């Protein structure tokens, strides 16, 4: 048996939140290509129906379950419906999130409800889904939790309080998951994407096409797929509480303008 056989997710059931588009859809399809049945969750029924259709085209079973992840009851319902309909849950990808109103304000201008909505969307949602899924994973003898953070979870941003706070919290929430459930054979890890502007021309323009990223371009959604499959597969069974960064080299530098490459010869003895 070759090492790559360990990547197969045949017979596994995955739940992906925020699966209607962008990175969430890309991860849903990647998991399906590796053989997993995929439950697609997001608010927009139309978008997750389309993702589910694409999953089924690849072979595996799929459900589209409209879910508002800021609502703990809907998160529980998502997981319970998954287990009822598909028999189990092996992989939970907490991907739902993003900038919410007030995410671009200086701190003194952020309203209570803006703060709460941003934290609920990006952080509480992870807690709600984990709380619902972990008892099933414990009962089944294991599972994989993949939380999607952000480069902004490792660094700050000007006027970027809500999103940066929530995404950083996800990383440390994941570490505590790792420590708590290691003995139940549940691995929890983070994917940290850099800039993946989902064909959003406005963001792409703000990023000037990615010229400030060391690789000179933004990420393509499908590039997150292999990392997701790896973290969902048995090949990552000894990886727990870790992060995989996909950012074109951004976080390796960030201390000087991209492209700065000084030439300083050695001085004489």
């Amino acid at each position, binding site marked *: 048996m070759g090492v790559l056989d360990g990547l197969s997710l045949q017979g596994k059931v995955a739940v992906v939140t925020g699966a209607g588009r962008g990175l969430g859809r890309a991860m849903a399809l990647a998991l399906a290509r590796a053989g997993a049945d995929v439950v697609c969750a997001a608010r927009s029924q139309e978008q997750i129906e389309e993702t589910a259709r694409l999953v089924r085209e690849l072979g595996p079973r799929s459900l589209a379950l409209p879910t508002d992840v800021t609502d703990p009851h809907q998160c529980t319902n998502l997981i319970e419906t998954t287990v009822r309909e598909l028999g189990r849950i092996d992989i939970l990808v907490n991907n739902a999130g993003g900038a919410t109103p007030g995410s671009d304000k200086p701190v003194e201008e952020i309203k209570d409800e803006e703060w709460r909505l941003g934290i609920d969307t990006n952080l509480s949602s992870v807690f709600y889904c984990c709380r619902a899924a972990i008892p099933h994973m414990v009962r089944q003898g294991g599972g994989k939790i993949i939380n999607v953070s952000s480069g902004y979870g490792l660094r700050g941003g000007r006027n970027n309080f809500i999103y940066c706070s929530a995404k950083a919290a996800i990383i440390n929430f994941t570490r505590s998951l790792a420590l708590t459930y290691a003995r139940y054979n549940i691995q929890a890890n983070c994917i940290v994407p850099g800039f993946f502007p989902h064909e959003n021309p406005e963001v792409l323009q703000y990023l000037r096409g990615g010229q400030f990223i060391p690789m000179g371009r933004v990420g393509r959604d499908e590039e997150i797929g292999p990392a997701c499959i790896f973290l969902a597969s048995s090949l990552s069974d000894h990886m727990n509480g870790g992060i995989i960064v996909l950012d074109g080299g951004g976080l*390796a530098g960030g*201390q000087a*303008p991209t492209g700065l*490459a000084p030439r*300083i010869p*050695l001085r004489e003895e």
Partner: protein
Amino acid sequence: MQELRLDGKVALVMGVENGIGRALAVALAEAGADVACCATRPSQEVAAHSCANEVWAVGRRSLAAAVRATSPQEVEALVERVVAELGRLDILVNAHDLPFALPLEETGPEQFRRVLAENLEAVYLAIRAASRPMLAQGKGRIINVVPLLAERGLANATAYCAAKAGVLNLTRALALEWARRGIAINALGCGWTEGEGLASDPEAQAALGRYLPYRRLAQPREMAGAAVYLASEAADFVTGQVIWVDGGALSHI
């Protein structure tokens, strides 16, 4: 804050030919320490004397030296001289710095080794020499000065970044080794500072001035407060850590 005073202590600062080394030497003196000022190249003796004069001018005792910092014998003789002339050794500041940046394919093995030797191995040699009096008295402070490039990369700076990261993790490893022997060892993380390290390149300095959160580079003097803190009894429980004085640069994405 009486705990921040360094009265009665003796410090040795390596690398006083650099702006940061010199600023730290003078600051430790202002906080009350006697300070031995050592340049890391024999040709920089004048800079060492000039630094020592500044220490005398603030009313503390000093000595000036210029040694080959990569020579174990010269560094050990230096420490013996400090103890002989100033009576003891409590604080070692390693501000060694050999700037170097070239594309990897233009960086020859000799250059790579020299960058590692002057930026990393020389720090080890200074620590090893200073550890004799410090371990004997069961007390000591070591402060390793590192740039942002100990933590992050920069194109053309592979050898330099590797050496500086080596100093940073050496700090953590040795802190654990000596945690119960009275010697605390920490790093002072310096942001981009005018004329220092790879900011000695004028083009790089100009680009950084537009890029950094403060829209300017630091002055060497701005590193002094953290160094005095780390050298003082106020930091008695601090070891194996790095304090970044970087104008917010590391918070940046």
